[in-house]
């Protein structure tokens, strides 16, 4: 590593090299770390009809006494409130349920797709790969909106179903869990396919051939050879989908019912409709705590990747 550009090695780091680290470092501290500390602080405050709408507000001018009064004003009331209210608990459970089920669905759909691409003729692979990535570039909101078009009561899906005489009465698709699952699977599919494809592509196919030569049926070879070897990709895809889905807002809001809200919606309503910032902050902190384990797994994977272990 020593003597490379920009770094200049550990021993002779110039001010220019320090700046390379310092600028993004400070930016992230100010715009990522500090905001989190503020969220934690406000989650311990109380709602107030004021600007900003919470108390206590820390006043640096008041000095030591002000700080003492400020600390004394903090409380865990909001957390007790969240724990006592079934609304929040059911939101969290609903989010975890939707995230777990849709991650499983994504695996079921994503794995065959990734497998098909990885086993396609070599010269087709780049094109197929791009075709899977491409929808990721078009707006997320637009893709969900496209499904609103299709799933509404007199939308295309029901028109087709009626024309084919599969149903007599047009069923309601919008505002159902089915619609939410369709939307989530549709939006997150590239995130599931890519890591699985990456591991399958690197896999040594002669291993499967060897198993077949030794009389192993294809399904057993898949179970004993292909699947274990693709496991890193499967875990990466699952984590990459699961974490953001838990906090998803747009999809359940546009496609789902308003009866059981996911936690992202609850947070949104708490903040925008009820203007209860302290409770919204507490909801965010609890959500973050729920995600600590998958986040740690994800962090571990990224660290290994960044370490050059490709």
């Amino acid at each position, binding site marked *: *590593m020593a*003597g*490379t*550009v*920009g770094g200049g090695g550990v021993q002779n780091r110039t001010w220019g*090299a320090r700046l*390379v*680290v310092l*600028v*993004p470092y400070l*930016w992230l501290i100010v*715009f*990522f*770390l500090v*905001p989190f500390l503020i*969220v934690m602080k406000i989650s311990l405050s109380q709602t107030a009809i004021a600007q*900003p709408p919470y108390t206590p507000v820390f006043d640096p001018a008041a000095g030591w006494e002000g700080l003492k009064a400020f600390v004394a004003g903090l409380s865990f009331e909001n957390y007790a409130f969240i724990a006592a209210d079934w609304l929040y608990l059911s939101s969290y459970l609903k989010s975890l349920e939707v995230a777990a089920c849709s991650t499983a669905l994504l695996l079921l*759909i994503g794995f*065959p797709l990734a497998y*098909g691409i990885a*086993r*396609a003729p*070599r010269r087709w692979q780049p094109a197929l790969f791009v*075709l*899977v990535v491409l929808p990721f*570039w*078009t*707006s997320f*909101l*637009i*893709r969900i*909106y*496209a*499904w609103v*078009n*299709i799933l509404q009561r007199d939308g295309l899906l029901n028109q087709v179903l009626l024309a084919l005489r599969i149903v007599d009465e047009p069923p309601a698709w919008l505002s159902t869990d089915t619609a939410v699952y369709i939307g989530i699977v549709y939006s997150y*599919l*590239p995130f599931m*396919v890519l*890591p699985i494809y*990456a591991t399958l592509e690197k896999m040594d*196919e002669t291993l499967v051939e060897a198993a077949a030569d030794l009389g192993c049926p294809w399904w057993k070879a898949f179970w004993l050879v292909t699947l274990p070897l693709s496991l890193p990709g499967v875990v990466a895809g699952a*984590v*990459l989908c699961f974490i*953001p889905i838990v*906090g998803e*807002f*747009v999809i359940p809001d*546009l496609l789902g019912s308003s009866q059981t809200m996911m936690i992202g919606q609850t*947070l949104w309503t708490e903040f925008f409709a009820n203007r209860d*910032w302290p409770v919204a*902050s507490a909801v*965010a902190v609890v*959500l973050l705590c729920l995600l600590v384990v998958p*986040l740690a797994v*994800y*962090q571990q*994977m990224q660290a290994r990747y960044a370490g*050059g272990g*490709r």
Partner: protein
Amino acid sequence: MRKASWFNIGSVALGLAFLYLPIVILVIYSFNGSRLVTVWGGWSTRWYAELLNDSALLESAWVTLRIALLSATVATVLGTLAAIALVRFGRFRGRMLFSGMIYAPLVMPEVITGLSLLLLFVASDIDRGFWTITFAHTTLTACFVTVVVQSRLLTFDTSLEEAAMDLGCPPLRTFLAVTLPLIAPALASGWMLAFTLSLDDLVIASFTTGPGATTLPIRIYSQVRLGVKPEINAICSIMIAVVATGIVAASLLTKFHDVGRDSVGAVAVK
């Protein structure tokens, strides 16, 4: 060796159809002459013409574009610096925290990021609007740029840099003359990714916006909640066309395969 089995062809075909059909249907319906979105009234470009008269919508489009251009550019600079720090500097004090702050925003639910940034802006008494959205988008997209550039730097042949330095080229000049041109494709795809992410973002923009800064996704969202309208089909089709053009342009500049691979493939662990 590589014979495509029916199962493989089927799963790929079905998967791709699932990914593309809704978009195709949306674009087709944007040319629907009928006011009723569900009834086909013949081909027409009337909704596109109507968009041009909607000054509020045009204003939103302009704000969104400015935010995306500015935040993508700053994010590319920040992200590249961060990537160099992560790949080239080995261990430095606070590296754990640094890499944590880079990777966490990539998967963090947007409602949390949005809420925390808003509370920061409120606490520091900053007027919300154009600039707060720009700062928020820069922060988020810089992390994506970092991962894209990082994956490029990891596969980078350092002997070229070493050769330049051995011949007496100072570090900064080596960086500008050797490293930068070599990682330029990654910077381009990082910028593109940052640009489209900013163009697309609804949740974080909703939290950090203020008077006079209604971005296109915020406007589209508020209209979609009221129901499907042919005008929205038209504006969405235009956005798809803009992004598609951008991708084609990027693919002409770099190798197409790399654009896709660097962006999403890097975010997903290899």
